Every structure is written in C-alpha cells, then in structure tokens.
C-alpha cells in the first residue's frame, strides 16, 4: 500500500506542542551579546551626524555602529525576466539618506537587549526631513529617492501580445476599472532574527537566522559581506512562520553579521513586534488600471493593464517578483488573444515590499476575476457563463499564455463545476434572492485562480544507515509546511520502508547539499521530486547512498473558490458566511496537510478582505504599527470552509504534484470581492476595493462614495 495519498498526521507537531522546538531565540552561546537598532523616525530625510557618545558611555554597551563602520555592501537586487530594475539594493545600515520610517541607522551591541534599547534612545541623529513619496501612481513626478533612479522607477516591465488596439476597436463593449490593493503585514508569530558568530579559526562566520531556507541567506549575506561558501555557514533552526517574509534576509541580519565580524563577538538580534511592523518587508501594495475588450457573447477579445507597484525605498532581492507575477498571470484561466500589460514599480518612502503568501498571484486573481464579473454585469450575462466561454480548454495544455508562461496542466471548468456543486450554487442563489426580498444584503462570488509554482531546481541526498534508518538531506526547508511528515511518506514509498524510519535533515549549509528552498509552493513538487529521483537512483544502484538535483519548468496549480457574504446594514459589518474551495494541485501527497494549507491560506485571504491594511499617513508614518491597530482574524471570525481537490497531475515531475501552499490566499480575496460587489449591486455599487471594512460598506449602503 502506498503512503503517498494518505492523511498521515504531522509527526513534527509532537515537538512543537510540547514546547521542545528550538527557535532562534532559544539558542544560547557563550558570551552572546544582544543588538538593538536605532531607527529613523522620518520617512525621507538626509542623514547628518550620528552622535553616539552618550550611548557608548552607558554601562553594558559594547559598541554603537553606523553604516560607515561596517564593511558590507548593500544586499543584492533581484531582477525579473524582461524587466529593468534599478541598482537600489537595501543598505545594511542607512547611508547619507533614510528612505522609510523605521529604517535602521545604527546598531547598538550590549550585554542585554534592555541595555541596548536604553542606549539606542541615547543616540543622537541629525536628520534633514525631505518630502515623503507615497503614491505609486504619481511617484514618477515626485522628488527622487535615489539620485540615479530617474522618475523613481525601481522596476519597468511591459509585454504586448497580439493586436490589442484591433481587439479594442472590434469590441462590442469595453469595461474598465481602477483598483487599489493595500499593503499587508505578514505578521508571523515568530518575528525575524539572527545570531552571528565568527570563529577565528579558519575565519568562518556562522549565521543562525529565522528564514525560509539557508541557501538564499547564504547567497545574500555572501554578497553583502563578500564571503564565499567556505567562510560562511547559515543555520536555520525551527521557524515559527514566515509566509514569504523570511525569504530574503533583512538588512538587519546583514548588519548583525557584519558587526560580529567587525567586533569579533557573537551577537543576537531578535526582532520585536514593532520592528516587524516597521521594517519587515510588507506584502501586496498595488494600484492598477485594467480594461477588457468584449464580444457580445462575453468572449474576452483583449486585455490592457497598467500596474503601479508601491515597492518602497529599496529593492530587496525578491521585491520585483510579486508585481511581475501579477502581470504574467493577468490572463488567469482565460484564453485572451491580445494583451498589453505594463508595470511601473515605484520607489516610495515606505519599507520595501516583498513576497507575502500568494506573492503577486492574489493581485492577479483579484484583478482579472473582478474584471470578468464587471464584463458580465456590462453584458447582462451570468458571470459563471462568461467564465465558461473564456476558459483555456483541457485539450490546450501545455498552453502558452499570451504573456509568455506555459501552463503545464489544468482542468479549469472541472474545478468550477466542482466548486459550484460543493457550494450548491442553485440553493445559494435561491437563498440569496429570498434574503434580498426580506431586505437583507447578501451576495455570492466566484473566483478562479492560477498559481505559478515550482520551477528552478532542488537537491536531495538519501542514505541508508546500518541501523535501518534512512537519512534524507534536503535543500528544501520547513517553516510550518510539514516536510518531516510528507517527505517521509514520499521516501517510504520509494524505498519500501516505514515513514517512521525516515529522518529528515535540513537547514544547515554545512549539513545539506546546496539547494533552493521553500517558497512559491514548491516544496513537494521540487523538493519531493528530488527525493524521488535520489531514492530511485539509490534503488537502481543497490548502494547505500544517492543524491539528485531535480530541475523542472514552472508548474501551475489552479482552482475555483465560491464565497457567500452578508452585510449588516445597521453596522456595515461584512460577514463571510461560507467559502467553498476547490484546488487542483496535481497529485496530493497528504490530504490532511493539504487541507490544512487550504484552510490557513483561506484565512489569510479572508484577513485581507475583512480587516488587514497597512496604512501610512501623509508623512509616511505607518499608522497601523502594532497588533492594536492592525487586526488579524481569530477563529471567531471564520466561516465554514469546505475544501475539495481536483487532481490533474503535472507532467513535469515524477510525483505529478503542483503546489498547495497559497491557493486559499490567492482565490479567496477574488471570490469575496465578487460576492461583496454582488451584494451591493442592488444599491447601484459597481466595485469596492479591499479591505471591506464596516465604515466603507455602511457608507456605500447609505448611497455615498466609499
């Protein structure tokens, strides 16, 4: 009997639930000092003299370091295919200028965190405030953040396919809509952090950091500190959540690492919650203008979009990825013959953005799915029928989209049918109409999605130990996904052993082969497939160990979500009554864990709909800088969430898997946004941007503008 496909409970939870996990802050080293940062109170300012004399005199303070004290380059900038990115990497500590409120200006190293914070307050910094730049739509004509970045353009990208002008000229109808998708905070329970220690013997710097994998920190810190693999080791302990926010190392991690080299002492920095709000990169942050050209039967003839991404003061290595992904997925599950999409990635005086669960895909799904509903409204067609008329059909795979990615597999209409059946659409529509007749404000919405997942490569080593254990070294790296359980299932099937005999090793660049890591819902498709490949090599060779590096093109998970909402006209409160979720992630290794991913991602998607919004005031100060101001959903707010899977295997890997980590966060906002617009349609409301807060909805119900 096969282990893959079975709902094996998470074996790692025993360790976590007993409090036996080792997070970064649990690590103790002899002589470990603590760091705290002096942070800019201004969003945009010239940086003058830094006077740390009083701070240095405080008992217990070891050092106060500024940008010029550290031998480190800015973190590397990452590009995207076909895009032009500016050389605006995040400095390790601010130099000459600060470009967001909360940017680290100096690092205090002391015997305790409390003393370090006392000393940080005593550091006197001269700032000459400059005008903040807040709106990505107008940033091109605003004061420059970087002297050598014209028009504040950190990223420019565009793509045209087909005869777009012809499509719009031939259209029966054209619908257009402007969107604002606010920034979000990832808010993992365990914040970021690092410990750095330089071992003088061999000049090896070891950095423990709370990260999604050890490989990207190794590359990024190696670049910044100019250290190769032989003189740099990265260790990732247990991680209490990341959601994308621990993919690229923070500037603070590089600062701590450089300081440990400079001072010759081990240093820890554990980010506090305020720092996490202010300086951990944020997600989303996109404005967009989108237009569809339509035939009278609802077929989409063309799509035009301009995306204005609010990228912040610098480019982290992954900052450009999210808007690029949004652009590349704008045609969604639909066959659109002509497209024109452009990105203006603006420098703004805010903390940089970066991947957050979904990472560009929720924006794409929200934009195209809202546009399809608006098209249906314009043509007076059923939005479900408009979707059917435009889907990429099942026989078209592999399907190259007009934007240039190739969808490996998919069954879009089957997913839609499955979610309509799961949610009982006919009953829902009857109930909605009956509720409306009673004066209640109820709506139903559908959201389709496509999720780029996998890609690049991943590594694995499998070794049979004399005592019967199978030790697996993986380049993939868990931070909540359940690798210890699912990877053991995969290896158990390949080698015919019990999963309990499989031991997983990850997260230490000295212990595991070079790899890529855990992001973009890629662990099973890439890490799991590398394991399969290594295990098969082991079996074929009859030896005791084997390794593999598995490479593959992108795989595309997909799905359909259905949401029902009701708005309380007395208070404006939106209640999401139910969510039905159908995900096609290819072959499912563990249905229990897959459902857990769907539930968790859906809840984060609901948070984006209901309460989450990082708000900056006109000075560029983050107004929502604590959990008192920035709400996260609790169990009490959650609706019934029903999950089913359609399994269209990917042809690109031996497991046939795609990805399951993000679908709920991608499709839920689209489905809820459509449901909210449906609920408000009888009141003459055409579109509402998330989050769907009480005051906004109440005002719309009074007939006012949101």
């Amino acid at each position, binding site marked *: 009997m096969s282990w893959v496909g079975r709902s094996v409970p998470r074996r790692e939870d025993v360790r976590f639930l007993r409090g036996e996990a080792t997070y970064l802050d649990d690590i103790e080293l002899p002589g470990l000092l603590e760091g705290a940062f002096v942070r800019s109170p201004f969003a945009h300012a010239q940086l003058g003299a830094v006077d740390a004399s009083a701070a240095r005199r405080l008992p217990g303070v070891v050092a106060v370091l500024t940008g010029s004290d550290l031998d480190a380059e800015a973190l590397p900038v990452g590009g995207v295919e076909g895009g032009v990115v500016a050389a605006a990497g995040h400095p390790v500590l601010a130099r000459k200028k600060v470009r967001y409120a909360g940017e680290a200006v100096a690092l205090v190293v002391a015997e305790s*965190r*409390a003393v370090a*914070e*006392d000393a940080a*307050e005593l550091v006197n910094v001269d700032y000459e405030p400059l005008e903040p730049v807040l709106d990505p739509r107008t940033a091109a004509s605003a004061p420059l953040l970087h002297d050598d970045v014209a028009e504040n353009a950190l990223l420019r990208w565009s793509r045209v396919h087909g005869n777009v002008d012809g499509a719009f000229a031939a259209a029966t109808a054209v619908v257009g809509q402007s969107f604002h998708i606010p920034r979000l905070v990832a808010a993992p329970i365990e914040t970021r952090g690092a410990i750095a220690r330089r071992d003088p013997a061999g000049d090896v710097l070891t950095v423990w950091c709370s990260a999604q994998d050890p490989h990207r920190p190794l590359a990024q810190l190696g670049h910044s500190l100019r250290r190769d693999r032989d003189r740099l080791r990265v260790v990732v302990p247990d991680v209490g959540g990341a959601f994308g926010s621990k993919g690229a190392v923070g500037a603070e991690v590089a600062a701590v690492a450089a300081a440990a080299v400079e001072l010759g002492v081990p240093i820890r920095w554990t980010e*506090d*919650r*305020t720092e996490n709000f202010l300086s951990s990169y944020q997600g989303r942050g996109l404005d967009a203008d989108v237009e569809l050209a339509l035939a009278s039967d609802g077929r989409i003839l063309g799509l035009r979009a301009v995306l204005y991404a609010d990228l912040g003061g610098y480019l982290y290595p992954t900052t450009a990825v999210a808007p690029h992904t949004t652009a590349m997925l704008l045609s969604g599950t639909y066959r659109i013959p002509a497209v024109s999409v452009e990105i203006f990635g603006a420098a703004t005086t805010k903390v940089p953005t970066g991947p957050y669960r979904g990472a560009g895909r929720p924006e794409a799904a929200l934009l195209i799915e809202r546009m399809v509903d608006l098209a249906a409204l314009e043509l007076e067609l059923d939005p479900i029928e408009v979707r059917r008329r435009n889907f990429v059909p099942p026989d078209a795979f592999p399907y190259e989209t007009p934007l240039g990615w190739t969808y490996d597999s998919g069954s879009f209409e089957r997913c839609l049918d499955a979610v309509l059946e799961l949610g009982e659409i006919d009953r829902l529509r009857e109930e909605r109409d009956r509720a409306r007749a009673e004066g209640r404000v109820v709506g139903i919405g559908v959201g389709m999605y496509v999720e780029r997942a996998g890609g690049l490569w991943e590594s694995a080593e499998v070794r049979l130990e004399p005592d019967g254990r199978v030790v697996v070294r993986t380049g993939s790296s868990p931070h909540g996904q359940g690798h210890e359980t699912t990877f053991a299932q995969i290896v158990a099937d390949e080698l015919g052993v019990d999963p309990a005999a499989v031991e997983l090793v990850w997260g230490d660049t000295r212990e595991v082969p070079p790899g890529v890591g855990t992001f973009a819902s890629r662990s099973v498709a890439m890490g799991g497939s590398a394991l399969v490949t290594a295990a098969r090599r082991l079996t074929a060779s009859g030896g005791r160990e084997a390794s593999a590096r598995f490479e593959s093109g992108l795989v595309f998970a997909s799905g359909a979500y259905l949401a029902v909402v009701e708005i309380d006209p*007395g*208070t*404006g*409160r939106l209640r999401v009554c139910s969510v039905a979720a159908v995900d096609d992630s290819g072959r499912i290794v563990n249905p229990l864990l897959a459902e857990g991913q769907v539930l968790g991602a859906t809840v984060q998607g609901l948070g984006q709909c*209901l*309460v989450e919004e990082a708000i900056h005031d006109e000075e560029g100060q983050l107004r929502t800088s*604590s959990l*008192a101001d920035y*709400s*996260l*959903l*609790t*169990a*009490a*707010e959650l609706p019934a969430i029903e999950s089913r899977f359609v399994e269209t295997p990917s042809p690109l890997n031996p497991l046939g898997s795609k990805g399951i980590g993000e679908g709920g966060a991608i499709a839920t906002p689209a489905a809820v946004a459509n449901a909210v617009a449906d609920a408000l349609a009888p009141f003459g409301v055409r579109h509402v941007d998330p989050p769907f807060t*009480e*005051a906004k909805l*109440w*005002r719309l119900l009074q007939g006012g503008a949101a």
Partner: protein
Amino acid sequence: MKPAAFAYDDPRELDEALTLLAREDEDVKVLAGGQSLVPLLNFRLARPDRLVDLNRVEQLGYLRREGDVLRIGALARHADLERSAEVAGGWPLLAQAACFVGHPQIRARGTVCGSVAHADPAAELPVALAALDARFHVRSVRGSRVLSADELFLGYFTTALEPDELLVEIEVPAPPAGSGSAFVEHARTHGDFALAGAAAIAAGAEARMALLAAGPVPVRARAAEALLASGASFAEAADAAVAELGLAGEDADWRRALLRELVLRALEEAGA
C-alpha cells in the same frame, strides 16, 4: 521592546502600598493585572520611576456580596466577575461586559479596578459600572473618599485619582428588581478593542444606558433615559442617546450610526 528601568516594590499590606504611593520625589505607578500598564511600559510610553505591585496585598483580593451591594476589591480579576454566581444572579451586566474584555488570558490577570483606573473610554467595565451607578472607594495616606462615575472619569485615560491615591474598592448597588440587562459591542475582531458599545439595564419604562467609545469618558445617556421614562420608543431613545455626542474624525457619521444601532440592540435585548 523592553521597558525603561524602574524600581519595584511588592508590599504585603495596604498601608505599606499607600506609603509607597505617597513618595513625592518619584513618579510611582500601581501594578495589578498589568494588562494595560505592561504593554505601555514595553512600548516605553509609560516610564515610571517605581512600580508598586499590589499582587501580594491579600486583603485586596475579594469579590463579595454584602446585603444589596457587590464589593469588588482592587485585586478582583475580570475572570472573577465572569465566574461568580453572585454576579450572575444579581449583577448580570457585569458578567455580560466582562466577556468582551480581551481574551481569556487577559481576563485571568486583568483587574476590574485596574481597568477603571486606566480609564480607557473604549473599555467595557467602566461603561457597565457607570450604568450600574457604581461608587468608587479611594484611599491614600491622607484619608479616603468615595466618587461616582461622573466624578471619577475626567477624560481620555484621565481620572480624578491623585498620584498618591489608590482605587481600593468598587461598590455596586443592586440594579432595580426585575430588570433585564444587556451589553453589546462592535470590534473588528473578537477580543479586539471595541469601536463602539452600549450597556443597558431596563425594567419597564425605567432604563439606564451607558455608551462605550462615544467620547472621552463612559457616556451615561441620561436624556435618552428620561425620554424612555416619559413613554418614548426604544428607537427614539436610541436617537436621543447619540444626538448630543461630540464625535469627530472621518468616520464620525458611521460611528454615530453604529452607536445608535448598538443602543437600540442593547435596549431590545435588556427589555425583552
């Protein structure tokens, strides 16, 4: 997120605590449940020279009925209100309000008197106590005095307590015989700070109402109470309860509508 340095005392006797509070050379703060003070310390928004921790002053840890009044000592926790049979039977509004205070962990530590002394107009218990005509017993080395809610609450996070004074007890008279009560509130998420709320006690045409997050202090809706007594409907009373509120800011129109809705719901629930 570490507090600035402070001195710390944990007296065993009330007199000892009052003597410490009377130190004129220092800014002294009282620590009881710590659910508001400790975050303020960690944010460095509060920077007292000294904390006087009441948790070992055993004589302050009581919640008891004496005849027709309920006496809440300075160390009684929110959870005590939630769990007390006396409170459920005689002062159900307090238990109804206590359920909305944060999360169970917060209610297990946070004290009723601490919440009152903190004087956050978005806090539940000061509003419920205002509706119940509670009396606030204050002690210092100089003597003692008793204040009403109107006398105690002066503004946002501001009370009539002098730096050397301690709120040692809240005395709550019994609500009218046969009255019903309700506490309703609106928060973004369960356990989050309330955006608006209302407490109501109703016995026929006689009703008392107090509003949460409707101004700088708990707002007793006396005009609405008078209207009800003269035969007005709940809806008319709800209109009157929010008519005079000095709400400001971009969401003032929505907050007024929300408060009206909550007053109406509280009256309907209490009067049902």
